[in-house]
């Protein structure tokens, strides 16, 4: 398999484009196609999806023909921790409020760095939380929950 694919980047790009295209086409089937004069909601998306699949197929075919460079290592630690920290933030921001959600975001995400130190991370979390509350809540007047609903606010 790996010998067959000469360009891994082209291969996966093709796969992703084809996948997106197919999903879009299948979903679009539920909408009206209409005619060129009176286009239904499915008309333009269907054209685009077909185009995307076509590009995906070309990329896929090319991946077996033309030599390419390898993808390179993924930063899995960063990828996972950053994503988790953002999702966690979204999960608790309304319930716990910024005063807890922001430190969680900062500490979990900064653990992704190889230079992570607890004491600095805590300090950074405290500083950024105060700064954010001052800027967004006080200066700009954006209504954000400082203390969330879990605390009976």
């Amino acid at each position, binding site marked *: 398999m790996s010998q067959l694919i000469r360009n891994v*980047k082209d291969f996966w790009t093709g796969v992703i484009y084809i996948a*997106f295209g197919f999903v879009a086409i299948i979903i679009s089937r539920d909408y009206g196609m209409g005619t060129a*004069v009176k286009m239904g909601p499915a008309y333009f998306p269907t054209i685009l*999806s077909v185009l995307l699949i076509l590009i995906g197929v070309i*990329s896929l075919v090319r991946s077996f023909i033309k030599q390419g460079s390898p993808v390179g290592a993924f930063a899995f630690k960063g990828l996972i921790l950053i994503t988790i920290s*953002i999702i966690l933030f979204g999960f608790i921001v309304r319930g716990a409020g910024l005063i807890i959600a*922001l430190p969680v975001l900062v500490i979990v995400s*900064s653990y992704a760095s190889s230079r992570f130190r607890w004491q*600095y991370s805590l300090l950074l979390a405290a500083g950024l939380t105060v700064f954010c509350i001052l800027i*967004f809540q006080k200066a700009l007047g954006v209504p954000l929950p400082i203390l969330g609903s879990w605390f009976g606010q």
Partner: protein
Amino acid sequence: MELIANIGLGFATALTPVNLLYCLAGVFLGTLIGVLPGLGPTATIAMLLPVTFTLPPVSALIMLAGIYYGSQYGGSTTSILVNVPGEAASVVTTLDGYQMALQGRAGVALTTAAVGSFFAGTVATLLIALFASPMAAIALKFGPAEFFSLIVLGLLAAIVLSRGSLLHAIGMVVLGLLLGLVGADVNTGAQRFTFGVPQLADGIGFVVVAMGMFGIAEIIRNLEQEDNCAAMVSKITGLMPTREDWKRMVAPILRGTAIGSALGILPGSGSILGAFAAYAIEKKVSKHGKEFGTGAIEGVAAPESANNAGAQTSFIPMLTLGIPSNPVMALMIGAMIIQGIQPGPSVITEQPALFWGIVVSMWIGNLFLIILNLPLIGIWVRMVCVPYHYLFPAILVFCGVGVFSLNNTEFDIYLMALFGLLGYVFVKLDCEPAPMLLAFILGPLMEEYMRRALLLSRGDPMIFLERPISATLLALGMLAIVAASLPMFYKKREEAFRE
């Protein structure tokens, strides 16, 4: 003279204390964030957009424009001081700028960049003032077919100018258009691709996409290898160029401004193409061409003037046609729509104070850049070396709070994380996010114009080729794509981006 009256109106709008303050704040914040490692103009503007939403429209746009050229100047500063271009347009500045810094002439290089940018900014502002009204008048005659073809041209140009594989870039544009269609269909009200999620009924927020693809994905990529600020920051001694330096920078600044202004107006371009072209041309025509790459002052003056001129003239299609020519302008369009302004040729006539206020504020912003940046250079130098492990949690915090504050929904936060992941995967696969963001904003517009055009022609697609302006625009786009895929040009393009 109408022009003088218009500029007078602009000054009256831009010189109010509030707007002056926001202009100053924009330039300051833009530079501050622009000099930070790993943050280009697109990410900077996406991050700061939520801050401007509470302001009145004129102030918000003045501030955003300030952020844009501030962050661009910040990018040039890092190019010169530490050999790290903050963004694509200042890549060429590293060639001679950093060499000058190594020779202890960092201060002179920075002054050259500032003077060149200011001059270019002044000329470009005048150009906008001169050409905006005629352009808008022409645009008012445009029918849906012309607008459709213009969008196609813009997208094709963005594809040609993106780095990496041409094929991947085309795919990114199509994918962007498709993602732009998520939400309610304007004509029929049908919910498309919403998966029954009510938060998607109004479509995916462009700030969410921009923050995810440019902010979050960039953080993950930077975490692959954390550099210390290993490149030592050169000491800045004299800021003042010598008499000889002044003499040598005049012609390159003039040429750079001309090239940058002309190329900036082109769709899909903005400041990048101008900077590259100005450097290449200067290298050929300059008496000191042989010194290029070893710290020639011309190699800083020309591209720096060009990229600032291009940054400003790229406002022309955005303000007069309502068609963004690069991702930054796409974000500007998005900001205008959120502020309740429908971008397009009618903005000049319907909201003259807003339009001329923005134009004049650009010149004031450039003035701020030069009087702010040179004295404050000590601060910027220190910002260049902020360790990344302190910086990225701060970016995350700003993105998180900003995106949540937009619609007050957690869903946007999750979506941002998703686009971050997607963006990182695409970066790894050599698929550039910039054309996608542009297409994402243009998707609904493109569909709307296509619908209207085909309604007029009773479904005959030949309308796009029968109308002369539309046909010319399409032909130009095809020409660009064909030229870029020819083996001869293809090699040139690869070389240009490698440099």
